[in-house]
């Protein structure tokens, strides 16, 4: 075990003295968070808005429900998607990770007529179900509110006939940044572990350091254990820096529990093993960096790090389902944002299993000696 500690100390010293590694490990994700945080607070694109119209008469939308949908559509602010009236709206939104859903309840037409008749003594209500951890939800909400205000004004010079009831589906009040940061933590664990493993293995091989180490009593498994612990520690460091920055700059609110810590450790384990497997098939450090990029870049963009998977085309969503980073990101969000501990544990167990498999394969095919 002392060999592991000695090698780990040497690796950490090397990390601390390598400014470019510090930049890519800590500063780069921090800059990403700052940029994305700023961009998504000022977006002006069309937003997906799901509408469930329960106010039907013989299967057809009633006058007022139909009118409201027409008005929402005419703003050109939304891509309207209709949801089956028989579904449980809130469950549907949670299951499908919808950002925004308007539920027009049964009897809405009657309530609207009543409100008009009694000059606002009663009101007609719609429900706005939203995931406050997404960047678009607050924007959609504000547009819906302004449409409703406008309708009220047009109909009755400001008397409130129509009201919107908020129903947040995330358990606490989180913002986009709270959604985003777990993704960047997952991404950093991946890039740190893969790049470190691939790059170090290729460089040690090319420079003959493996040969030198092989002439000492240091065992190969001790070295691999040291590298794995190193990657876990660096991923934790990245996690701490990103969370502190999120709290300081964006007032982030998220839970840091044992499951999320375990997930980061297992992700580092898995990506360390994956990096060792890649390293076995590259000939030199340049090839190693290219190979690491080929693996990490698609995963970075296709695994829901920056955007929700539901916002991607269906075929990309299908690809995402086979990428391990998807399960890391979803597991981290389940633990840190949604409070879905059970889901987080399932994802962590899956990543741990993949991690053990990849580190075993990586260890077996990594050679210090020549044939």
């Amino acid at each position, binding site marked *: 075990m002392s060999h592991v500690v000695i090698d780990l100390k*040497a690796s950490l010293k090397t990390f601390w003295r390598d400014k470019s590694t510090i930049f890519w490990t800590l500063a780069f994700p921090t800059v990403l968070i700052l940029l994305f945080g700023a961009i998504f607070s000022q977006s002006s694109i069309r937003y997906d808005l799901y509408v469930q119209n329960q106010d039907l008469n013989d299967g057809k939308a009633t006058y007022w429900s139909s009118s409201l949908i027409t008005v929402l559509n005419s703003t050109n602010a939304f891509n309207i998607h209709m949801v089956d009236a028989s579904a449980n709206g809130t469950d549907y939104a949670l299951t499908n990770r919808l950002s925004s859903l308007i539920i027009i309840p049964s009897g809405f037409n009657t309530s609207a007529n009543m409100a008009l008749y009694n000059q606002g003594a009663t009101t007609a209500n719609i429900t706005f179900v939203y995931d406050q951890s997404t960047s678009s939800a607050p924007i959609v909400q504000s547009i819906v509110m302004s449409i409703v205000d406008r309708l009220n004004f047009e109909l009755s010079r400001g008397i409130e006939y129509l009201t919107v009831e908020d129903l947040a589906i995330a358990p606490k009040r989180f913002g986009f940044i709270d959604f985003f940061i777990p993704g960047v933590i997952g991404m950093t664990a991946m890039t740190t572990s893969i790049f470190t493993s691939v790059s170090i293995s290729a460089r040690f091989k090319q420079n003959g350091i493996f040969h030198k*180490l*092989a002439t000492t*009593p240091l065992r190969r498994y001790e070295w691999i254990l040291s590298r794995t612990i190193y990657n876990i520690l660096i991923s934790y460091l990245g996690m701490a820096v990103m969370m502190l920055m999120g709290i300081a700059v964006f007032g982030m609110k998220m839970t840091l529990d044992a499951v999320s810590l375990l997930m980061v450790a297992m992700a580092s384990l898995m990506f360390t093993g994956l990096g060792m497997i890649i390293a076995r098939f590259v000939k030199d450090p340049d090839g190693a960096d290219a190979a690491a990029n080929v693996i990490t870049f698609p995963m970075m963009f296709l695994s829901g790090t920056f955007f929700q998977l539901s916002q991607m085309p269906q075929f990309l969503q299908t690809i995402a389902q086979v990428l391990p980073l998807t399960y890391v990101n979803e597991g981290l969000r389940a633990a840190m944002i949604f409070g879905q501990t059970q889901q987080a544990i399932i994802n962590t167990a899956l990543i741990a299993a993949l991690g053990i498999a990849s580190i075993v394969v990586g260890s077996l095919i990594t050679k210090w000696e*020549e044939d």
Partner: protein
Amino acid sequence: MSSSYAIEVKGLTKRYGELVAVNGISFAVNRGEIFAFLGPNGAGKTTTVEILECLRKPTSGKAYVLGNDIERNQSEIKKRTGVLPQDFYTYERLTVKETIQYYAGMFDAHPDVDELIRLVDLEDKKNVLFRNLSGGLKQRLGIAVALVNDPEMIFLDEPTSGLDPKARHGVWHLIDGLHKKGKTVFLTTHYMEEAEILADRVGIIHNGTIVALDSPASLISEHGTRNLLILKKTSPKAVPSIEKLGIKAKYDGTTGDVTVHLNHTVGVSEILHTLSSTEVPFGELQLKRSSLEDVFLNLTGVSLEEEEGSI
């Protein structure tokens, strides 16, 4: 297990597919001696030394290091030997002192680190990062690292390759110091001068086969050419005059020099007398002693420099 030899190799062969890198070599290295493996790049030196360091597996044959079978007692061999690989490299951002401490830790050894730094004359560089050291200083650090476990024998694979003459002499001084401390040194080199100056015995390896093995003096005596007399800027007429004495001479039209292969029957004064009597002019005289280069040339038919150039 004890053995009178530091290294004992019997019929060692290493094949890579069709290529035979080492072809059934046998030799032994005595304890406390400096043994040099001399040959051009690609001759099989590094393959052999890496088999002895337990970094490669032989295709066939046996080898014992300090009495330990290289295929069965690897951990014992690693504990008792030190290794300087070709172009020693390590963590770039560890200092000289930290590098020595790192490798000492790997051997669970507690050497006097400052003493090791003094030994390789790196006292003023002890806090310099490895990446900032010159090639010669890196090799010196590599030698210090090879000594952290106070090994009984040290493998030095091309210890001065790529170094400038000053750095090379510094490393030679260090190796000589190890010899004086009673360490066995197994050295591979393609520099004849290095083998001639340092080694007690030299094994000449060519195309994976040991073609000669003895002390440098014995090798030169047995396989070297005779000493050479070079007559600078003379005339081609000198050649027939000298050959009348029964010895070989050769004129070089480019330099205008005549090279005479001396033997025991004809002395230099006799040659000079002949030239004077035939009124052949010549400039200065140069006497060249036979060297391991000549031994290599005689044994393999090619010069070491030609072999280097062809690789």
